[in-house]
């Protein structure tokens, strides 16, 4: 399953501070969209509003609407917990659960929700998810070992396996490779390419090459200065953004002339 995301006039606040201002964009199903921009420009914050994860911080709220296949995430009758089962997330630092084995980490989304399932069904999920995350071959003989014993790159792929095990429609990735070495990064990028056929993927990255390599669409965010809200400056096909950006700020940023 894969779904279209439509954002209309979204403002994000942390208490009184307006972190992101007036973002509207549409993300098509089965595409990879990259968010780029300088640190603190609100791209991660914006990403987190797509599965209501920003609400985890006290005082955070949004104005505006986010539609996933026509349903507003911020309608009154929407339970954020259920939203997050539809829209999965992978974080900057790999964060497998230290108390759980590799197998249990993959099954975490299912097990933590107290869903009962047969051992066969669980094995099936573990295998398909780990295969989906390109990790199966490396860990199939040590599924009962703790997840925190893996290398950083493996841990991140374990986190991706964990995220896709609950079969979300959309996968959000918040700088998934920034803590990884180039080889692990390549593995994750290949994985994103494969996952694209099934999921709508949104990725925040500081790495411009990565954005140009993996994404179909790119959105550039920027801030006017400290304390100002972040804004969506330009959004379009990745090739256009990188070759012929229409806004000067975008061109400056991607060519490294920023600041």
């Amino acid at each position: 399953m894969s779904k279209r995301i439509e954002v209309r006039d979204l403002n994000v606040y942390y208490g009184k501070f307006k972190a992101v201002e007036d973002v509207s964009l549409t993300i098509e199903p089965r595409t990879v969209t990259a968010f780029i921009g300088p640190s603190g420009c609100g791209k991660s914050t914006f990403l987190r509003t797509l599965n209501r994860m920003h609400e985890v911080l006290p005082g955070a709220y949004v104005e505006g609407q986010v539609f996933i296949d026509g349903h507003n995430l911020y309608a009154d009758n929407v339970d954020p917990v259920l939203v997050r089962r539809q829209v999965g997330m992978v974080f900057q630092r790999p964060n497998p659960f230290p108390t759980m084995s590799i197998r249990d980490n993959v099954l975490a989304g299912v097990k933590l929700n107290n869903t009962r399932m047969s051992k066969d069904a669980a094995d099936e999920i573990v295998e398909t998810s780990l295969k989906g995350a390109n990790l199966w071959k490396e860990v199939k003989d040590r599924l009962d070992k703790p997840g925190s014993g893996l290398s950083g790159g493996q841990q991140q792929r374990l986190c991706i396996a964990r995220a896709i095990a609950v079969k979300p429609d959309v996968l959000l990735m918040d700088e998934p490779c920034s803590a990884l070495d180039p080889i692990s990064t390549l593995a994750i990028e290949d994985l994103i390419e494969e996952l694209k056929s099934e999921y709508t993927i949104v990725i925040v990255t500081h790495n411009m090459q990565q954005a140009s390599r993996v994404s179909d669409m790119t959105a550039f965010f920027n801030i006017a200065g400290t304390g100002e809200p972040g804004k969506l400056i330009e959004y379009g096909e990745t090739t256009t953004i990188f070759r012929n950006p229409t806004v000067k700020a975008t061109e400056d940023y991607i060519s490294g002339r920023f600041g």
Partner: protein
Amino acid sequence: MDTPAYANSRRTISRTTTWATVGLSALLSVALFALLNFAGIARTFDWVGSLVVAILLYVVLISVLSAIVEGRRKSTDRFITTILYGAFALAMVPLISLIVTTIIGGIKRFDLQFFSESMRNVVDAGGGGLHAIVGTLEVTAAASVISIPIGILTAVYLVEYGQGKLARAITFLVDVMTGIPSIVAGLFAFALFSMFLGPGIRFGLGGAVALSLLMIPVVVRSTEEMLKLVPHELREASYALGVPKWLTILKVVLPTAISGIITGVVIAISRIIGETAPLLIICGLTDTTNYNLFQGRMTTLPVFVYSSYANQGTGTADIDRAWTGALVLILIVLILNLVARILSKVLAPKGSR
């Protein structure tokens, strides 16, 4: 030839010389105190005194020697290192002395009879501390049953849910509770139960309530610290999988912090298991083994030790029993700590961080 600037131009003090200095300081110190002893100024040989003097002597000797041979930097290093080790050695003296004294005093009556008989109808020798052991175990267990859930739940509230005034007020009250003198807790429980169950009431559960007043703040504080150590990223990872907050706390946060929480709980139990004053008021004193927490007086080990010492008969029977009571109390705390260690090891998150 050229000597590089970083080469050590000075000589160093060898290990043999270092140990020789240690020996010399010890010898001088012992000789000094022995002299005092012979001269009749001190009546007995003062071991602790000679240790302190030996350490001080060694600090001076090695620093001066090092300053002459090795230079100022090394000398300072030796000075500080010696002070640190010396402080540690001094801190160990009372602990070791306490344990050795208790073992020597307590081993005499550390027999089967002590663990199988109470003091009922015992006037002089014989008898035992069964009633006190039972009392300690039951009252402490009851206090733990009351305090651990309340304490852990309060900590979970403070860390995971509490914001604003209410949480601040609770934190403040917990801090105040930490400072309550234990006798006040005993009086509180006594007053409370006297109100409902008639004046002069004395029973085990009342003691457990008094102890839980002392135990809850310790459990809250330590659990709070442990929960704060759980990385926020783990909570986020769980939320991102569509896991509700309460399940995240129950299945991710608490299991991750469990080994620290257990340690905190055991420290809290060790803190209250030796309480005497409040139990003397609300649990009273009896020579009979009472298994019923809800009725009748109940003696615990600290109260037993106190009363044996306070009301000595002729001969040493009471004093011997008091020592053994103290020894058993130490052993119970020791066993608790060991169990907690093992539990923490088994339950702790595995693998590298």
